[in-house]
């Protein structure tokens, strides 16, 4: 990992622009910003073309001989398959409304991180090869040749976009840079120019069922570890089931929740909830990933990974599917899954076995978000909750980009938080809900080597957290996203020390009063609960 700069150094930037035109400013690929190139073996594992080891910092990217042809042919192909792509190449008026809405621009001041300009990097190529005016007038029409330097520049900036869609909220035509980034990354993928932080998890997920590469026995031992902790905390031994045929519900979580701190605490919350409800559910080691790094690679790869969820639901004969807390996972499940791998006519319209509520909003896709499920339970008084166990926490909620701008899951998690915590404060209005600011690590950019980029990109979010931290003493950043749970601890330590990152179901697990449990003296992190039994000496 590159050595981290000091805060003051990171915040030196202004929003000035260079005196030279952007086309005359060559790309400078900086360590700390770029992610390592994909290893050949990870691309080969899923049969991607032009697999090889390469490094973005090298002069020679070992491009295939006919790279230009591949790129332009790939572009033509996608222009004819996606109206969004063609339209977004054509209709931008460069009004600049999106310019200062990007967290990477706010955090870096690099004008090529303005969404409009990031898109222009590709539009200039589009104009040159796909429009008459670009062919005739060249640069005067904003067109430029596709050269190796241009390719490198495109690559560098398209891996500085987290596909968060914030720019799209403010664009008068709804131009979505995420959509353009997705297309650009498909093109890079044709040339073997993926990044390893995406290619590795994709290969893992394809072969082993999840991004982090947990084999079935490891999943079991990780869960066993959580069950031990739950027993210590609640006095109850839980027995979840795996790969069980005939269960009513298949539960799919992001694999981050099965893997590491603090995601595992969220997972413990899920398990405790299901145990308390006596839910007839099972988890799968084969479809052990709700997230989808294929989505950051190509539409086809995303579909290939996503296919496992319905395939497993069919094999196990469940009635419907419940999904855990994860951001891009829900963009994919909400907007893509049914189209790719549906119709899920072998499943039933989801109904909560506890409340009888029909989840009519999921009647086709048959997959329900766990906060929809849990909010419904609480609304119908099906859970006994003791929010005072979370009284030492002052909570704010971070809307993850995808559930807010690709779904609209805003009130469900807030409702749960309102019932399991007594101290809650919203961040400023311009930074939440559909205007939420990205963690800066989404879309597969949560690697270690690009930590400077992540800190910069996460700065606007952290700045809003700092505001409520200073004003109300907020010490917990709640969220419904596995990438948030991985990204925020480092981000908070750097920008707003003293703020912990917690999934909503971790907070729920703490407040949940389970039948026959012992008096809680520990929270799910096995830390003493202040004011409950044993006092902390730390």
């Amino acid at each position: 990992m590159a050595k981290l700069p000091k805060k003051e150094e990171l915040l030196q930037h202004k929003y000035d622009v260079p005196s030279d035109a952007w086309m005359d400013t060559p790309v400078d690929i900086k360590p700390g910003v770029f992610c390592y190139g994909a290893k050949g073996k990870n691309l080969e594992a899923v049969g991607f073309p032009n697999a090889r080891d390469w490094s973005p910092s090298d002069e020679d990217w070992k491009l295939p001989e006919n790279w230009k042809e591949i790129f332009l042919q790939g572009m033509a192909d996608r222009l004819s398959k996606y109206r969004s792509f063609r339209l977004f190449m054509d209709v931008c008026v460069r009004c600049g409304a999106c310019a200062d809405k990007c967290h990477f621009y706010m955090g870096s001041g690099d004008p090529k991180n303005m969404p409009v300009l990031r898109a222009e990097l590709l539009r200039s190529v589009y104009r040159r090869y796909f429009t008459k005016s670009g062919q005739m007038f060249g640069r005067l029409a904003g067109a430029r040749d596709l050269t190796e330097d241009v390719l490198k520049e495109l690559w560098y900036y398209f891996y500085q976009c987290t596909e968060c869609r914030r720019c799209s909220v403010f664009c008068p035509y709804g131009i979505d840079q995420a959509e353009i980034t997705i297309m650009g990354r498909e093109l890079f993928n044709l040339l073997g120019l993926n990044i390893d932080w995406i290619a590795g998890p994709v290969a893992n997920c394809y072969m082993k069922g999840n991004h982090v590469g947990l084999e079935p026995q490891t999943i079991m031992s990780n869960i066993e570890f959580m069950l031990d902790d739950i027993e210590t905390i609640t006095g109850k031994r839980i027995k979840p089931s795996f790969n069980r045929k005939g269960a009513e519900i298949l539960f799919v979580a992001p694999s981050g929740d099965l893997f590491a701190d603090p995601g595992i605490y969220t997972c413990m919350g899920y398990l405790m909830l299901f145990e308390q409800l006596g839910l007839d559910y099972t988890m799968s080691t084969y479809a052990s990933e709700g997230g989808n790094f294929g989505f950051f690679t190509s539409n086809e790869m995303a579909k290939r990974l996503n296919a496992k969820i319905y395939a497993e639901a069919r094999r196990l004969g469940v009635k419907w599917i419940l999904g855990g807390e994860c951001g891009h996972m829900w963009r994919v499940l909400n907007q893509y899954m049914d189209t790719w791998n549906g119709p899920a006519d072998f499943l039933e319209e989801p109904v909560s076995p506890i409340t009888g509520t029909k989840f009519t909003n999921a009647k086709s896709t048959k997959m329900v978000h766990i906060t929809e499920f849990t909010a419904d339970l609480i609304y119908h008084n099906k859970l006994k909750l003791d929010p005072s166990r979370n009284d030492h926490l002052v909570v704010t909620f971070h809307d993850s980009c995808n559930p807010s701008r690709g779904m609209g899951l805003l009130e469900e998690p807030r409702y749960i938080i309102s019932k399991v915590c007594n101290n809650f404060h919203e961040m400023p209005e311009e930074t939440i809900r559909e205007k939420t600011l990205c963690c800066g690590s989404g879309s597969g950019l949560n690697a270690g080597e690009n930590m400077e980029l992540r800190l910069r990109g996460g700065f606007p979010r952290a700045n809003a957290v700092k505001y409520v931290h200073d004003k109300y003493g907020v010490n917990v950043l709640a969220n419904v996203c596995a990438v948030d749970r991985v990204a925020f601890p480092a981000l908070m330590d750097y920008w707003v020390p003293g703020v912990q990152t917690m999934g909503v179901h971790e907070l729920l697990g703490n407040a949940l009063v389970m039948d026959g449990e012992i008096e809680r003296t520990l929270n799910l992190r096995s830390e003493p609960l202040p004011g409950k039994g044993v006092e902390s000496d730390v």
Partner: protein
Amino acid sequence: MKIWSSLLVVIILASFAWIGVDFLHLTTLFGIVVPYIAFLIFLLGFIYRVVNWGKSPVPFCIPTTCGQQQSLPWIKQNKIENPSTIWGVVGRMVLEIFLFRSLFRNTKTEKTGNSLAFGSAKWLWFGGLVFHWSMLVVVIRHLRFFLNPVPGFVQGLEMLDSFLQVGVPLLYITDILLVLALTYLFLRRVLIPQIKYISLAADYFPLLLLLGVAVTGILMRYFFKVDLLAVKELTMGLVTFTPTVSAEIGAIFYMHVILVSSLVAYFPWSKLMHAGGIFMSPTRNLANNSRMVRHVNPWNYQVETHSYTEYEDEFRDKMRKVGLPLEKE
């Protein structure tokens, strides 16, 4: 360079008409041929562009949601900003097209020391709205030259537009607003460094062309005062396909006409096509109902997957050891 070349093109275009009419007396060319060709290019070009966009399908349901989804019955959905029905989408599009809803959200990010602040920034929204609405009113007012008798709503609109009752002929408010809004849009492009940095010739040119159209129109109405009867004779001739240029109309009229012709002929090949594109934007014109109703991708195809059988074959021993159920023992 981008600004000056754009300005130069506008001046050259206007000079064509001036020289052509005043010195070469090519009134038929500039009064009839050019407008006809321009209008034809506009019509065919506009259709071509929209059809061309339409040919690319919308494979996925990708609305940008800007409010609460339809979920549990007791959670209040934002039916406009996150529509789940066609009516919600219509509402969203109406707000977007007539009131520029998304642009109304605009904020300005300011960095002071180590913190960010988001200030209000409604001027772009306001300037854009004033320009587009003024333009619409001006275009509708011009129907008086193409319809006989002049419809009541056109006359009504003219009355409203001139309610200040200033000057002879009466001053239209939208004439002033149009020029002011265009000037604002032009100046922000020149004066705000970030906007200047992203601007192309294709951004300056339409603004200057529109300003040229507005200025020649205003000069013609308020200062040079061309023969309106002769103008109407020409314009009515154009729409009834019996065009004649009878009387002398001043060169300023032909300058106005050639700039308008250039604008409409340029329209389909330029960013001005956002006027058609906004209707087709999949992030705005789709309902967020993809979990309720399956969205079909016309080019969806079979993909290679890693099946459970392959997975179990690879991990069978390990799975057996931890007691996981197996398909094949």
